[in-house]
């Protein structure tokens, strides 16, 4: 049976390690890189190199950043009295793309998952408490994922922050706008009823 040359085989192996990329897709991508102009293929490798060398975690909020502080922490127009706590940088990006929030963020880099051996010490919770202690926040918005472990992480943090004079809130949950009550399951309806708001 014919085989790829050594270097192509190595590229297929490397591409196949990426999330969501199986062997077939890796082979297709490798073949694509061999067909495009050399400059285009090398631009990809250069981008990967630059990202790995330049991108790090923001010293303040642990978002991805190319300098010591990310663009959000460095922006003086952001509301410095509100802090939104998320699990991962990609959650921060989703909230930013919603365009409804102008405060600051803190990225935990995970969630407390004792069954997987992940405890509070492996997250950036200590830094969060230091920020709250030395900052002028009036509200902390817990925006961890609405899962058992996400809720547990939020509860742990809100217990830690209970000694500070600030409001700890969490994202609303319940019925999706544009859907109908008839098809919502009872847990969603219970969430919506428990979190109802005044007109």
């Amino acid at each position, binding site marked *: 049976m014919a085989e790829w040359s050594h270097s192509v085989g190595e590229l297929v192996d490397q591409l196949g390690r990426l999330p969501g990329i199986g062997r077939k897709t890796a082979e297709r991508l490798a073949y694509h890189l061999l067909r495009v102009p050399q400059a285009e293929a090398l631009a990809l490798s250069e981008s990967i190199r630059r990202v790995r060398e330049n991108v790090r975690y923001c010293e303040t909020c642990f978002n991805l950043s190319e300098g010591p502080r990310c663009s959000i922490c460095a922006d003086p127009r952001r509301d410095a009295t509100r802090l939104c706590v998320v699990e991962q940088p990609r959650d921060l990006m989703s909230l930013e793309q919603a365009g409804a929030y102008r405060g600051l963020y803190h990225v935990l880099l995970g969630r407390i998952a*004792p*069954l997987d*051996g992940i405890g509070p010490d492996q997250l950036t919770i200590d830094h969060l408490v230091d920020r709250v202690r030395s900052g002028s926040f009036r509200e902390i918005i817990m925006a961890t994922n609405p*899962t*058992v472990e996400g*809720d*547990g992480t939020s509860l742990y943090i809100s*217990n830690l922050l209970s000694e500070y004079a600030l409001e700890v809130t969490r994202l609303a949950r319940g019925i999706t706008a544009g859907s109908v009550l008839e098809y919502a*399951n009872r847990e969603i309806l219970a969430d919506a009823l428990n979190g109802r708001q005044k007109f």
Partner: protein
Amino acid sequence: MASEKTDALVLRTIEFSETSLVVVLLTRQFGKSSALAKGARRAKGPFEGALDLLSICRVVIIPKSGDTLDLLTEAKLQRRFRAGERNLGRLYAGYYVAELLREMTDRGDPHPDLYDLALETLEELDGETDVRACLLRFELQTLRLLGHAPTIDRCAACGSEVPEGGRFGFGVTSGGVLCAACRPATRQVVLLRGATRETLRSLLSEAAVSGPPPPVPAELHGELRGVINRYITNLLGGPPRMQSYLAAASPTIDGQGRRR
């Protein structure tokens, strides 16, 4: 292979790809199952966010033979475990229930009575029932239903009667109480009070499998917790991960592990 419909409790979820999960389930009819749920991480689809830790679902599963993962094609949420929204001690107790079920049950070995006990325990943890009594009942009934219950009435080493009253020896590796003759020659023996033996007996009784958990006197809780921790550690070949978190379920220790 034909698909099967059953009730299931989610014991663990592992991210498998951008959109899929591997889930470990305890099903009522088929025992433990590790299954691939394709597209489960998408908001829309046949799972609708039902596959969260400790959720109770109605699932459709295609069993596979050998070591291959079963295939989960549908999950409808029946009840979510909500203790994590208000009390860390109750949340960690729920995690511990999931861990014990995962470690102590096997694929294709159904225990409907254990499944029902697990659901009742989670409902109690989600409510106001005393967490410590609830967990002790769950642990001892799980041991009984799976055939690992410690011997309480007779010596675990020689089978002779062990008189009631006074302190007695409990052999962690022998699997129960020890008579005065066997105790000196046995390793890993814990000395317990007579009242502890009575409480162990009531927690292990068949009648205690449902309904409110039998009361556990506060002064005996530490002794019971210690001996059951050691017994389960010996059975599993190591301590469960959540064992160290159970302190959060104690009324004298807060959710962050600080003494109140």
